[in-house]
């Protein structure tokens, strides 16, 4: 089996099929651009830019100081080089750190006042900013039960949030869902208490940079005992050229509360790589539960590795209270380079962390992703299921840490990492780190690597499926465990993504 760059058309294959496959193969669906007038901060990063971003967001003095402190730290730090990825050096002074549509200079009072061009952008992405029952453009969503259909959306465009839906209805339940810039202005006591408490300013190079220059992102607060009445989601869109996106998300689930949060991301096709360095912090108090799902579909670059997003992200959840629970689910199909380890700190006794991941890398993509499970409390449990799929010349690394501290008595971890190679020129790597500092905990690790089995493909084809259909079926089966953990609407989108990324990748 060899990788094919193009789909060869055999005689007798009908034109509709050829057109459909050609349209999907190597053709990034979200690569178009919105033409809109933008205000930029001058290129580069320095204390003045940090102050400028802070003033654009109309932030209080303490926030500006916090950012400047982070910037001072960042200047003394070095870029990490331990990940199994390679890319040309990033010129941090050749990036725009702030880009805002001109029409957003005055924050719209309601969704009706938002620039139609921006509304059209999200509509085209299948995420219309209307308070409608379901996410349109998601096939099969109409089959869902009546309750639980609503999804509130915060839409972030380059450096600013353009609007958040269902805010009034959420407010009735006591839930705060808004952009982080609004939260800094309207709920400073919460932001002050929690920001940087899970991912400290000095955590790592990109997190520190983010702390200095983050522009927008989402803020969620679920009060004690409240089950959030709808799914929350943030849709990140990078549109402007040579611009980095530095989003910051802060989610607080107070005692006994529950929320399911989804995140999606896309960007136009550009020849020059763009930086996305986000920080997500989640605080989970006693008996609370948070599900955080990501469908990451940033522009992956072309088949020769030109352009694409560098996705350097720090995501961490802190189970502070006893019996707190967190579940990370991610489907990673985009980005030229991914460096991302959504982690769980299991501080409360009997707290639980779960991580489900599918990373699909095609062409020249590189993904170094995994998780950290830090067991601090007694009887804590964690589970890791990671599936890496590589095609073309892509490299996919799972990197995971499981750490059982002395006080984490009777704790358990189960890790299962599978890698699937499609073709002969791609790679899969598994790098597990395990530290156990007590004698009553148990850590189990399983890892397998398999090529899409020729016998399985032949079996499918002998029953009448063509090769692409057969690969999609086998790979979907492989991914099923992870997809099952995704909220319904994203599961369907993700299944389609899985099929798209692999079209034309075998021959």
């Amino acid at each position, binding site marked *: 089996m060899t990788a094919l760059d193009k789909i060869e058309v055999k005689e007798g294959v009908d034109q509709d099929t050829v057109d459909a496959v050609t349209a999907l193969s190597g053709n990034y669906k979200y690569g178009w651009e919105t033409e809109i007038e933008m205000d930029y901060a001058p290129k580069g990063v320095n204390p003045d830019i940090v102050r400028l971003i802070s003033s654009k967001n109309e932030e209080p003095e303490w926030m500006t100081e916090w950012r400047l402190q982070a910037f001072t730290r960042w200047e003394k730090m070095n870029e990490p080089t331990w990940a199994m990825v390679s890319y040309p050096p990033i010129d941090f002074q050749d990036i725009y750190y702030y880009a805002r549509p001109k029409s957003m200079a005055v924050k719209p009072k309601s969704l009706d006042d938002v620039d139609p061009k921006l509304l059209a952008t999200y509509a085209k992405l299948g995420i219309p900013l209307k308070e409608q029952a379901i996410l349109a453009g998601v096939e099969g969503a109409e089959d869902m039960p009546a309750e639980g259909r609503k999804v509130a959306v915060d839409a972030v465009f380059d450096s600013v949030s353009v609007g958040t839906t269902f805010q009034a209805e959420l407010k009735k339940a006591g839930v705060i869902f808004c952009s982080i810039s609004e939260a800094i202005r309207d709920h400073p006591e919460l932001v002050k208490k929690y920001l940087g408490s899970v991912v400290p300013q000095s955590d790592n190079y990109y997190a520190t940079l983010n702390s200095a220059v983050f522009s927008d992102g989402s803020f969620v607060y679920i009060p004690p005992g409240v089950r959030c009445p709808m799914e929350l989601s943030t849709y990140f869109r990078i549109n402007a050229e040579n611009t980095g996106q530095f989003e910051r998300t802060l989610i607080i689930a107070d005692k006994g509360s529950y929320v399911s949060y989804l995140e999606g991301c896309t960007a136009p096709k550009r020849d020059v790589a763009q930086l996305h360095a986000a920080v997500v912090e989640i605080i989970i108090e006693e008996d609370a539960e948070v599900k955080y799902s990501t469908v990451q579909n940033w522009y992956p670059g072309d088949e020769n590795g030109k352009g694409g997003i560098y996705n350097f992200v720090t995501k961490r959840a802190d189970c502070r209270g006893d019996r707190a629970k967190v579940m990370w689910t991610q489907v990673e199909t985009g980005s030229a380079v991914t460096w991302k380890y959504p982690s769980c700190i299991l501080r409360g006794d009997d707290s639980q962390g779960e991580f489900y991941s599918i990373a699909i890398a095609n062409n020249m993509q590189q993904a170094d992703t995994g998780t950290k499970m830090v067991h601090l409390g007694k009887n804590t449990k964690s589970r890791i299921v990671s599936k890496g799929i590589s095609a073309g010349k892509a490299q996919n690394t799972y990197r995971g840490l499981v750490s059982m501290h002395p006080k984490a008595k009777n704790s358990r971890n189960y890790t299962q990492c599978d890698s699937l190679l499609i073709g002969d020129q791609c790679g899969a790597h598994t790098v597990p780190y395990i530290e156990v500092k007590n004698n009553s905990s148990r850590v189990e690790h399983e890892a397998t690597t398999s090529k899409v089995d020729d016998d399985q493909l032949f079996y*499918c084809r002998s029953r*009448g499926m063509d090769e692409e259909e057969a690969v999609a079926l086998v790979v979907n089966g492989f991914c099923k465990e992870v997809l099952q953990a995704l909220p319904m609407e994203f599961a369907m989108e993700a299944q389609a993504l899985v099929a798209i990324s692999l079209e034309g990748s075998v021959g």
Partner: protein
Amino acid sequence: MLEINNLHAELETDADVTILKGLTLSIKPGEVHAIMGPNGSGKSTLSYVLSGKDGYSVTAGSAMLEGVDLLEMEPEERAAAGLFLAFQYPVEIPGVGNMTFLRTAVNAQRKARGEEELSAGDFLKEVRAKAKDLQIDADMLKRPVNVGFSGGEKKRNEILQMAMLEPKMCILDETDSGLDVDAMKLVADGVNALRSENRSFLVITHYQRLLDHIKPDFVHILADGKIIKSGGPELALEVENNGYADILAGAA
């Protein structure tokens, strides 16, 4: 139905190993032919070459299904043209529900033939009825394809696929291997129910016992890549009683 003429095939990886050395066979519509032969005679290779598995190259001869050249087609095109192979060792496909697999296969073939896809409701009705005949329960339809199936379940599942795909030319590759008497009876009943004047069978087997249940019209003995003797059902009994040695000696 199936016309095989002077078929020569060798392993792609090792051209020195010729497995089929001039095999000729003609199967008319509605006929059931059995091929018997000792280990290494080329029985499984024949089924793989006909269904289009990678790893073999045909160096001479032809195989036509209803006048169409099989050897020029991709495996899925052969399937859509009406060829079906019941595997000796059906593979497992984790995470893919048996029902999903069946429906994908049925609709892929329909699409390839320019027919309308079967609706979910019609498909379900049909698969339930056919599964019942083969004593395949709802649980087995839901489970991933062949994962954790017993030997008998795997073979029954092959016959269910055959029943759903309604092929014209069915090849059964050692379908009796790994089956106890009851399971064999069940599988044979399934096959017999599908016999019709428009459908032909090529039953590849080591032993006569399957042929007690699936009665062939013709029996062929394959040895060293060629058919060395053909006859009626009595030939299978001869093998059962005397082994292959006499026939091989007679042919030599």
